[in-house]
């Protein structure tokens, strides 16, 4: 059997184990069932099928990739074995679920799940087995195609998948912009039609392939860099100004949430990304901003002053910044990991106090503060999300301007020096406590601004809106986007706040996904999707040294 000589299968059992565990897990924790009704392409396949077939394909691809050069066909054997292995595991799982009462323990292993896994027909266990083997082979085959083609195929598939998942909202937009005929031609029953999906896939894959081959160069007249910048800025500003009209009410509301989280992200980016202080109680300043706004403007019985939004806004920012200063003073002399826990403690203390009867006469306890008026422009109250959008846009613009300027200033460089090495920074004459306090204060101010707008946008606030998960959400988005990177923060906010809003089913597994995302980002891409230049250099300094040595 010289054909199988030096076929290296040592890694296969581990890969098989991991692939099986992941496939079993997505089924047993209820993800598959949740996405069972969500077609990506009408009548063809659902998100659930991607979830339980995807891991096998991925690990088959990984296994096949390890095959030695010149013996690529070995990859297909590995992929086949992996597919058969996972297939057997899943068939046993389906059999067990059908014949034993596992549901009393694992609540999500329901008959519906089994229906989805067996492709909704009797004897579907065989179909499941075949599907798993086929997806493993597909994954293995992907390792055989040239890089460029593979990238193009993956980009095409990714974009099609995304469009397919978001098609419910797209359909609504298409209907209101171009009429229902076009909309229903492309999207039917919340999923892409087959033909448009194929066209989209080919188009995106084609463009991606061409771009990699360099066949699509720069389009349009060549401009000087400075001119390009002006044109680009003008185009982006114009787009931002008309965005609510294109998006409609619901999507504008989502955009507003993204904007608020982006605002908080910008602040935390200064604290964590630039100054390197891990703050897990960041939500406290958001809460302080929101409660200050509520207390100052509310027309209910808890309102103190009844002043207008615009007068209250700077006060809220100042109060939150002040709180950052006061809380920062005692804690900023401690080491990084202790700081994380102490700020976490502060966040929790503030939340529990807000809930307690002790503070109830002032901030309403669990009932919160109601009747917070909307911002007024002249006689017009900004009630609709499309109107609120502009308030948030202004806030974001100011915050972006400020954080860019601060980052590029001497203070920004001091923060980064401190992040790299506190001792060296101190030796260079940087006053650590003052510099940290400044970062903490500015970060808190941004968060307070977001909180104040949030309170006014919602019209009423409750302590439950200010839990630890908000801090974790903001932290995740700046890590995913790229620590220290301002465009990265925006991308992070769009991915981590926008997508869960749009994919309602996803909301249940949002925190699970964040956990996975935090770990995988730290392991594989600690600089984030859109890294800041400095962080990238720092994190990969070791690689270069290794290559040089």
């Amino acid at each position, binding site marked *: 059997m010289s054909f199988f000589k030096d076929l290296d299968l040592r890694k296969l059992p581990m890969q098989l184990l991991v692939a099986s565990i992941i496939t079993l897990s997505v089924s047993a924790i209820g993800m598959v069932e949740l996405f069972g009704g969500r077609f990506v392409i009408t009548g063809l396949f659902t998100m659930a099928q991607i979830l339980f077939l995807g891991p096998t394909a991925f690990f088959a691809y990984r296994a096949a990739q390890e095959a030695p050069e010149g013996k690529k066909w070995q990859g297909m054997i590995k992929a086949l074995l992996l597919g058969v292995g996972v297939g057997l595991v899943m068939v046993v799982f389906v059999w067990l679920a059908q014949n034993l009462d596992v549901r009393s*323990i694992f609540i999500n292993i329901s008959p519906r799940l089994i229906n989805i896994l067996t492709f909704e027909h009797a004897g579907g266990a065989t179909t499941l087995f075949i599907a798993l083997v086929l997806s493993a082979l597909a994954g293995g085959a992907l390792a055989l195609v040239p890089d460029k083609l593979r990238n193009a195929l993956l980009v095409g598939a990714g974009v099609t998948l995304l469009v397919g998942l978001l098609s419910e909202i797209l359909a609504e937009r298409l209907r209101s912009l171009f009429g229902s005929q076009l909309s229903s031609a492309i999207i039917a029953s919340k999923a892409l039609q087959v033909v448009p999906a194929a066209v989209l896939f080919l188009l995106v894959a084609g463009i991606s392939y061409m771009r990699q081959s360099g066949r699509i160069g720069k389009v349009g007249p060549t401009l000087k860099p400075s001119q390009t910048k002006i044109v680009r800025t003008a185009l982006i500003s114009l787009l931002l100004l008309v965005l609510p009209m294109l998006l409609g009410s619901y999507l504008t509301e989502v955009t507003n949430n993204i904007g608020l989280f982006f605002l908080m992200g910008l602040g935390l980016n200064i604290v964590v990304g630039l100054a390197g202080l891990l703050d897990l109680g960041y939500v406290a300043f958001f809460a302080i901003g929101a409660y200050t706004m509520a207390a100052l403007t509310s027309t209910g019985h808890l309102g103190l002053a009844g002043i207008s939004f615009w007068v209250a806004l700077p006060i809220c920012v100042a109060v939150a910044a002040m709180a950052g200063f006061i809380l920062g003073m005692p804690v900023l002399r401690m080491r990084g990991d202790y700081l994380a826990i102490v700020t976490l*403690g502060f966040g929790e203390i503030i939340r529990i106090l807000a809930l307690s*009867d002790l503070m109830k006469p002032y901030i309403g306890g669990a009932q919160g503060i109601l009747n917070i008026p909307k911002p007024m422009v002249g006689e017009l109250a900004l009630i609709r999300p499309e109107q609120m959008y502009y308030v948030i846009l202004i806030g974001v613009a100011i915050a972006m301007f400020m954080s860019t300027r601060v980052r590029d200033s001497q203070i920004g460089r001091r923060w980064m020096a401190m992040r790299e090495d506190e001792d060296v920074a101190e030796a260079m004459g940087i006053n650590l406590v003052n510099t940290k306090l400044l970062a903490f204060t500015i970060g808190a101010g941004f968060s307070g601004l977001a909180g104040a707008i949030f309170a006014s946008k919602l019209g009423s606030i409750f302590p439950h809106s200010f839990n630890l998960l908000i801090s974790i959400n903001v932290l995740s988005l700046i890590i995913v986007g790229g620590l220290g990177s301002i465009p990265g923060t925006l991308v992070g906010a769009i991915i981590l706040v926008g997508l869960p809003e749009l994919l309602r089913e996803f909301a249940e597994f949002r925190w*699970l996904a964040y956990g996975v995302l935090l*770990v995988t980002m730290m392991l594989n891409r600690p600089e984030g999707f859109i890294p800041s230049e400095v962080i990238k250099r720092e994190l990969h300094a070791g690689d270069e040294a290794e290559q040089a040595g």
Partner: protein
Amino acid sequence: MRDRLRKLDFIDLFLWIVRAAIVAVILIGTVKTILSNPYTLRNWEDFIIFGIAQGSMYALIAIGYTLVYGVLQMINFAHGEFFMSGIFASTSAVAIPLARAGYLASHPIPSLLLIALCSILISIAISLLTERIAYRPLRHAPRLMPLITAIGASFFWQYYFRGLFGSQVIPFPDIPQLEGTVPFLHTFVLKSHVLVIFVTLVVLVGLNFFITSTRPGKAIRAVAENKDVAALMGINVNRTISLTFATGAAMAGVAGMLYALVFHQVHFFMGFIPGIKAFTAAVLGGIGSIPGAAVGGLFLGLFESLGPSLFLQSLGIPAFNQLKDVIAFTMLVLVLIFRPQGIVGERLKEKKA
């Protein structure tokens, strides 16, 4: 330089004011309570015993933090999840089926041992997985990074177990033999509390023996002292670190079992608050020190159980029991600010791993 001194003085002054304010609150509150004396001696004894029982659990969880910190100088933020995963899974998958079959009522001791064993094993498995996937690859990375993966792992496990067993509060089955009280001195103590305190004592003695007198225990201490030298002495450092995590997780598994016996319920989010409190306990006792963790846990348990009645009530704070967690968290903040080396511990040398 002068400017800087002035600044530091200002912050120090601020810290002294904070200290004075807290001491004043505790003193005034305590004196007022003692003068007005709203509780009987019996009440105080109940508080103390509950405090010891709760403190025992904190002590067991705190040991996990302290062991890992001693070896890796890292705060294992996901430790609360090791505590949760074991008992949450074994309540759903072992205790409830046993209770349904009636075996729990007829044979309480073997069933409890089985539940505890499952809880310990699951906690250990989760801890080993977490260490292998989320911590080991980042052992030489900047300190912020393993902390972030730890937060990620923590959320992952919470919602993973929520997906497996559901988001509702699951009642731990009642064990008739453990209900009721036993006489102790001149008062009565809940049987479950007696069991908790007894088990904790046994486990702590066992752990002490394991760490001080067995070869793996010595390996853990050697690695905590100096990884490179330990490796030169033929100790498998990676395996020893895994063993450290497993030991800590086993303690957390036991603590989970005791938690279920005292509070009669489990929930996917139950690891968060005890986790933070146990971390407080570990810092209180001087992080890195095992006896310190035990003492710190006991102290925190007592303080938390006595505190609200002792000095919050008489200050006229409404619904003072709501602020129980605030006491623990305030203690955490204060200890980390004022005595990060712990109340009993010696000053740690600044380790920059």
